[in-house]
């Protein structure tokens, strides 16, 4: 498949069926994402945003179609090399997925250790990530000592600590109040400024997407309805 040189992620006709009933969650989704783009995936609850991110991350195998990232394609593999695939993708989960018996810094160091960073780089990269999201001073705290927003910031720090090429964030502001949401969104901007990471952010919040996105993709009922560029515009069907 041929893609433009600055295209970092490419989805072609992705269809996903899930569960025993083989319910169709995504249908023929196709789009390319270029280096440095900040794409907001917009859609109501149950539209298929999380499934789309999970499919890109290799957690769900699409029924048909292909996903290309970093000149690699995994959907055709019966046993995909997921660790290789995820080497340059950071994921901030909606439920944070922090280990509660580890401190903030220990949580952030996990992906760095998994990627075989040297001891010195593990700490320096982890602290740098915490600094970018404004959580450096909470490094010795346990997640249970943090608010939901702060846990989301730690989750973001963990997702970007190893300087991935692509960041997937699943509803990063879900369940947070306006002030805390703003903090998280500012952290995302700071991340982009600092690391120039390409971002795919799933949200159901139209305002957030409209204010921050360089591109908005709207999904409804598992289908791509709108794919629009330009900050400050809310795309209509």
């Amino acid at each position: 498949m041929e893609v433009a040189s600055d295209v970092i992620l490419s989805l072609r006709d992705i269809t996903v069926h899930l569960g025993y009933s083989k319910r169709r969650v995504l249908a023929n989704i196709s789009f390319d994402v270029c280096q440095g783009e900040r794409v907001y995936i917009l859609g109501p609850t149950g539209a298929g945003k999380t499934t789309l991110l999970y499919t890109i991350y290799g957690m769900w195998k699409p029924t048909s179609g292909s996903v290309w990232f970093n000149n690699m394609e995994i959907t055709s593999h019966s046993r995909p090399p997921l660790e290789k695939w995820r080497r340059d993708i950071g994921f901030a989960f909606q439920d944070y997925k922090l280990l509660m018996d580890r401190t903030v810094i220990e949580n952030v160091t996990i992906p760095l250790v998994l990627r075989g960073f040297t001891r010195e780089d593990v700490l320096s990269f982890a602290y740098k990530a915490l600094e970018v999201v404004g959580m450096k001073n909470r490094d010795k705290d346990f997640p249970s000592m943090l608010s939901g927003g702060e846990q989301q910031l730690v989750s973001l720090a963990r997702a970007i600590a190893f300087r991935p090429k692509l960041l997937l964030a699943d509803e990063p502001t879900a369940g947070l109040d306006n002030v805390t949401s703003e903090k998280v969104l500012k952290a995302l901007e700071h991340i982009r400024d600092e690391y120039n990471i390409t971002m795919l952010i799933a949200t159901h919040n139209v305002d957030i997407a409209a204010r921050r996105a360089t591109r908005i993709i709207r999904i409804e009922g598992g289908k791509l309805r709108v794919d629009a560029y330009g900050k400050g515009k809310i795309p209509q069907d």
Partner: protein
Amino acid sequence: MVKARYRKTNLDRYFSRAFSIFWGGGIATLSAVLSVAFAVFVWITVSYLLIFTQNFAGAVYGNIGIVAFFNDSITDAGVSDVIADVKKIPGVNSVKYVPPEDALKNLEKSLADYSALIESLPYNPIPPSIEVYVENPEDLEKVAAALEKMGVFDDILVPTDFANKIMRIVSVSRTVVMSVMVLFLFITFVMIFLTISSAILSHHEEIVLYRLLGGSYVFIYFPFVLLGLLYGIAGAIIGTLGAAFAIRALTPGIQALGKAIIGIDHIAVGNMIPVYMVSIVVGLILALIAAMFAIRRFLVEMEVKGL
């Protein structure tokens, strides 16, 4: 942007993780180590008993001889020729000539209550004889047949029943020992499998997260393989030491028992070091296989969940 530096190996991390789970395992670690230790202890002890039984049987065989009484036609020169011929029969270990006088003395000794009767005999009725010792009690019949063919013996006494009993004892002991070993191999396997499975289960959240964050299966599971090896090493060392002490304490008593039963002063047990080494290696291999099985179970589960 600063470029990251990567490590050449993660082996130290695997070991440190395995040690941390091992020490932090508490009762689970203790039960896995003790089960390996107990199994190794039982293997070595029953191996020792088997070796002893075999040596005991060997010592008994060495004392089981065919007694062949010469006929009247034999001369002194003829006896030497016959002994030389008998030694050539396949399966014969040694031949001992018993003159009539010695045979009579032996009879007096074994029938001490009738010594007066024996002394009153006008002449020595026992003919000269030879005692033929075989290498393997299974050859008794074959050697007796060969002696019969020589045509110089009046009477040949073959202790077949006794030899058969001893062979049966050795055979039964071997079967019992093998069954006990297989049983304990299985018990140890199950114990280690369950302990490592529960260790993996108790780290399940962490393992899933590691996989989600890009950890390789090797990074996630290799520490558990090392954990299995740690159980194996610790258990095998404890079990072997325990068995070595037990064998040291048991040997004099067992040898005294052997002496009481067959009158042989010292039954060699032989070198137990190879048995210890084999038991340690078996313990380690078993722990490794059990660890692999436990891990495989979770690998399949992870794959099913798309991790």
